[in-house]
């Protein structure tokens, strides 16, 4: 009985089952293909870490942990320590964050709470546009406009009353820590403000309305309801901006002056990890020099990875919290 059953099956059903079977094979193949490609992205990331580690082995073996703690970056004497570069990177990024955070959060508050509705889209478009300008263009602008301005106008007028303070002392070349920090600040404003905007707009309307109904002013609502609610998300946004500033290369390279010393003055030239690689890699003449530069890249990558992961965790935790409150 069973043996004969398939023969009594209508032809159309048989054809369908046939095509279904074949479909399953192509289905599996297609799924396999996408999986394979997805895995290749993982492999690519792995390869990136592996190649950088392999390339810096010579430097790691030669200097060990001294690479991270030495203050001397001196290619002539074959001495390489990353500390002055880390210092330059952190200081320029810190200046950028200090300048950019109040402005970015101000923009985010303006766009979500203050700005008349029809103007919101065009203004946020303009702010986003800042992120679309290539960093080489920022560098060119910084070199031609910002650097002379610091050297001629801003620097002297700050130094006259405050020059006794080491932070503002020393000769003013224009290029240096301050120029790099200012350029970076402009570059990270659109990033911090975009994420902050998104975070702030997730505050439940009812909470704001409740505060306003109690007689609070709009600013009090922002200060006592909105900002405390989004604190984690805002910190995430700021750290995301910091991550961008740490790794930014071209604009900084063009205005920082490439001097490997730990300096006190905002006006003195310095170097970041990224700018050192950009400036010196094609001129590195011997193996240890090249390997040290690769290790700089490795250190830079680890630093930005940690910062980015921290930022994403904070933003992610914040969105999880918002979702939790919505379902309550």
């Amino acid at each position, binding site marked *: 009985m069973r043996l004969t059953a398939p023969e009594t099956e209508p032809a159309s059903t048989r054809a369908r089952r046939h095509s279904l079977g074949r479909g399953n094979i192509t289905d599996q193949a297609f799924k396999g293909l996408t999986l394979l490609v997805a895995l290749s992205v993982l492999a690519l990331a792995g390869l*990136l870490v592996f190649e*950088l580690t392999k390339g810096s082995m010579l430097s790691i073996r030669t200097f060990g942990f001294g690479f991270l703690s030495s203050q001397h970056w001196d290619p002539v004497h074959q001495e390489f320590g990353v500390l002055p570069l880390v210092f330059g990177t952190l200081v320029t990024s810190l200046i950028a964050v200090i300048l950019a955070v109040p402005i970015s959060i101000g923009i985010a508050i303006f766009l979500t709470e203050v700005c008349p509705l029809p103007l919101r889209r065009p203004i946020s478009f303009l*702010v986003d546009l800042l992120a679309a300008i290539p960093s080489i263009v920022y560098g060119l602008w910084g070199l031609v406009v910002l650097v002379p301005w610091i050297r001629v106008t801003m620097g002297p007028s700050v130094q006259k009353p405050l020059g006794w303070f080491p932070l503002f002392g020393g000769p003013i070349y224009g290029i240096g820590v301050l120029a790099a920090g200012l350029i970076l600040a402009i570059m990270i404003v659109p990033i911090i403000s975009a994420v902050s905007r998104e975070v702030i707009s997730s505050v439940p309307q009812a909470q704001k309305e409740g505060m306003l109904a109690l007689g609070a002013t709009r600013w009090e609502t922002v200060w006592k309801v909105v900002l405390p609610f989004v604190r984690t998300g805002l910190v995430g946004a700021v750290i995301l901006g910091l991550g961008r500033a740490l790794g*930014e290369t071209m604009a900084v390279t063009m205005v920082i002056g490439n001097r490997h010393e730990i300096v006190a003055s905002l006006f003195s030239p310095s170097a970041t990890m990224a700018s050192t690689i950009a400036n010196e890699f094609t001129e590195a003449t011997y193996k240890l020099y090249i390997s040290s530069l690769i290790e700089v890249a490795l250190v830079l990558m680890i630093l930005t990875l940690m910062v980015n992961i921290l930022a994403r965790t904070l933003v992610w935790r914040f969105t999880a919290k918002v979702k939790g409150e919505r379902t309550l």
Partner: protein
Amino acid sequence: MMRQAGRLTYQRRKVMNKVWLTATVLAAAATVLALVFILGYVIANGARALNLDFFSKLPKPVGETGGGMANAIVGTLIMLGLASAIALPIGVLTGVYLSEYGGGRFNAVIRFVADTMAGVPSIVVGMFAYLVVVLPMGHFSSLAGGIALAVIMIPIVTRGTEEILRVVPDSLREAALALGVNRWRVIVSVVIPTAAPGLITSFMLAIARASGETAPLLFTSLGSQFWSMSLDQPTASIPVQIFSYAIAPYDDWHRQAWAGALTLVAMVAVLTLVARLAFRGFKVQR
């Protein structure tokens, strides 16, 4: 007395409200002004320096004025084409996997890796391309430059694709599946066409991002004063050319750098505009 004090604090609160809200207006105004100032500077200087030669002639050696960036423009286009040819399929297929198949922890891992890759500084990506392409080949090439740009584009396209495909309503997938269409056919013939405008948006944004990148090209494609059409030769690109002109002390080279900057900004603007228009199409279709 009490009432007077209450009125005073009320006045004070009103003033604080005005002050702080005005401060946010100023923050926005300052940023928009900075944009206008920077873009205005690029447009004014660039427009003055742009001419037909810029698009049709090779760079002139030091001391001679004139010339252009024709080879750099072509070089940028070649490398962007190569990067797109590598990154778009990889990004789209990975995005398809994330949105249509798989799930749970493995997806979270891929998403996490793609996000962290997007945060890797571009100079580090350039170093990577140097190590895996330039070193084995023995010389700089546009192939290495294209691969470096592709590595930058892949995470952008991946996450973009996934997000766009997720927006395609499940009812469309279910309708097709109910008609007996195979899973892969549903993806290729229903999901992707529905999402096409959104996908174009993510492609354009990725290409726009790559087109302005300088750091990954510094020691991969290097640069060149001549035409180089073959993929295994050092190749000029607009951003690297701007860099080398900008840090040189010659006025004529600075002019060329501004012209290059304007060209680059215009390119990015057009790509972003196409991206926006395509996304509008996506919304209407939904």
